[in-house]
């Protein structure tokens, strides 16, 4: 257990965390803003990588492959939204159905269960190899930070527009939204599309980073996404009030998740137990607000204040 081995692993963990931060921002949009638990992401966290890697291998430009991955994610989100709004299937079940269907779709895209891509032969955007001994603009941490900044800037703008405001209202109070003339079904579908688009983009970057895409790489992605959202909330809620900073705290949550993971591995925990540990931590943190409400709420005073 040399501290050097941990320190040398941390930059890689940070880069991975930044890429998963994009994914976590996608989860934040559905889970926090839209108030929908969307399990499609376990499927889209593979779809994006599958699309991107297969396109790069067939000679497409890397940016084109990222765009295609984003669009593929949006289509997956659309399907879930369609199942939920048009066919009346509960959101959680709609997500599970798309996720299952995506397994077949992903297999068909890759053609087998996994596909490697060699960073020496292709000019990838991010990679395990681009952590040290590369100019800073090629460094995967730098690229990850740039992506996060760009995505937060775009989302900050979007959620400030008329459409974005109506999307926030939809998640906050759908009855009121309809009474104000907002098409809540349309907004739910749109939110799911944006969210899954971002998750697929993260998937495409992550596949490049690890040098392969794998049919199982999305398994449990929702838990990592939720963990990042929760870590970000617990650590930064008091200081980050602005919407852009809230999104940043989600991305930082993912980075912290991966750094803690690295430390846990360094301590020597059986890596087979990692998912159990992640699930436990998320379960406890999800329970905290419920317990707070049930056991620690002050009695509610009836009636308004003197100004009411």
């Amino acid at each position, binding site marked *: 257990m040399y501290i050097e081995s941990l320190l040398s692993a941390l930059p890689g963990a940070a880069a991975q965390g930044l890429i998963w931060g994009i994914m976590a921002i996608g989860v934040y949009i559905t889970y926090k803003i839209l108030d929908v638990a969307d399990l499609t992401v376990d499927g889209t966290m593979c779809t994006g990588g599958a699309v991107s890697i297969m396109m790069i291998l067939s000679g497409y430009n890397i940016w084109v492959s990222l765009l295609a991955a984003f669009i593929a994610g949006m289509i997956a989100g659309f399907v879930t939204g369609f199942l939920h709004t048009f066919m009346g299937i509960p959101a959680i079940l709609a997500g599970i159905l798309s996720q299952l269907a995506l397994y077949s779709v992903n297999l068909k895209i890759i053609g087998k269960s996994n596909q490697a891509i060699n960073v020496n032969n292709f000019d990838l955007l991010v990679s395990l190899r681009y952590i040290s001994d590369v100019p800073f603009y090629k460094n995967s941490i730098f690229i990850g930070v740039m992506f996060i900044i760009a995505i937060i800037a775009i989302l900050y703008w979007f959620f*400030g527009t008329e459409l974005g405001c109506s999307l926030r209202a939809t998640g*906050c109070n759908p009855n009121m939204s309809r009474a104000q003339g*907002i098409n809540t079904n349309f907004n739910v579908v749109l939110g799911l599309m944006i969210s899954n688009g971002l998750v697929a983009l993260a998937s495409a970057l992550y596949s490049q980073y690890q040098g392969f895409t794998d049919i199982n790489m999305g398994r449990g992605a929702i838990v990592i996404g939720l963990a990042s959202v929760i870590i970000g909330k617990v650590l930064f809620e008091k200081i980050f009030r602005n919407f852009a900073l809230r999104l940043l705290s989600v991305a930082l949550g993912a980075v912290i998740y991966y750094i803690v993971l690295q430390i846990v591995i360094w301590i020597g925990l059986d890596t087979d137990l990692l998912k159990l540990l992640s699930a436990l931590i998320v379960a406890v943190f999800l329970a905290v607000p419920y317990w707070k409400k049930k056991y620690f709420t002050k009695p509610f005073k009836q009636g308004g204040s003197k*100004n009411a």
Partner: protein
Amino acid sequence: MLEVKNIYKTFNVGTINEKRALNGLSLTLNEGDFVTVIGGNGAGKSTLMNALAGTWFVDEGNIIIDGIDVTKMPEFKRAKFLGRVFQDPTMGTAPTMGIDENLALAMRRGKGRGLKIGITKAEREKYKKLLSTLELGLEDRLTSKVGLLSGGQRQAVTLLMASLQKPKILLLDEHTAALDPKTAAKVLETTNKIISKDNLTTLMITHNMKDAIANGNRLIMMNNGNIVLDIKGEEKKNLTVETLLKKFEEVSKETFDNDSALLSL
């Protein structure tokens, strides 16, 4: 302004809980009418509101607002014509959004929502002025989250939201019922102010007979999914609670059974 023709609605069809909530109801409102609606428990008052708002579609009959048949128009499209305030103060606003943001959402009711900025500086100034007319000090808390406001404050904000885009019809569904008496009186005063300022055509359900008599130019009483009394003009002005109860017993051959209405006499 509003024409309701022979509407029916039955809930839980084919089960033991089958309930005919609207039973061939017809109603015509003229522009500027302020109608108070009263009735016993389960008379169909809220069902009528929801039918007008489009929460679900009626089984039979037609609803025409300002000459447009909205019978099969979904709720969010129909919202263009309607301003609504609900009984539950938490229903009418988005609690995690600011007062200004809620008003901005209401300002765009019935208009397309695109990628223009959601709330402009000029708008905020306008909202400040409008909020000051409520006399609740909310103009200094423009960006406060609505979730932090009291029930009365929220109802006042919801009223303002309902009237920002002048509605063809203002629907008030027992909007003072969840408030303490003092706050309820204040909200009702604000309601009257807003209605008379824009001469809004209004349908107001109330659980309080005195309020039903004291407000508006017309009173309707519902029973078993239909209108049993329709009192307007001079007759409405001279109405008392006793004559209203007597009339109700005459037409329905039963006693009035809304506890909260009787207790609040």
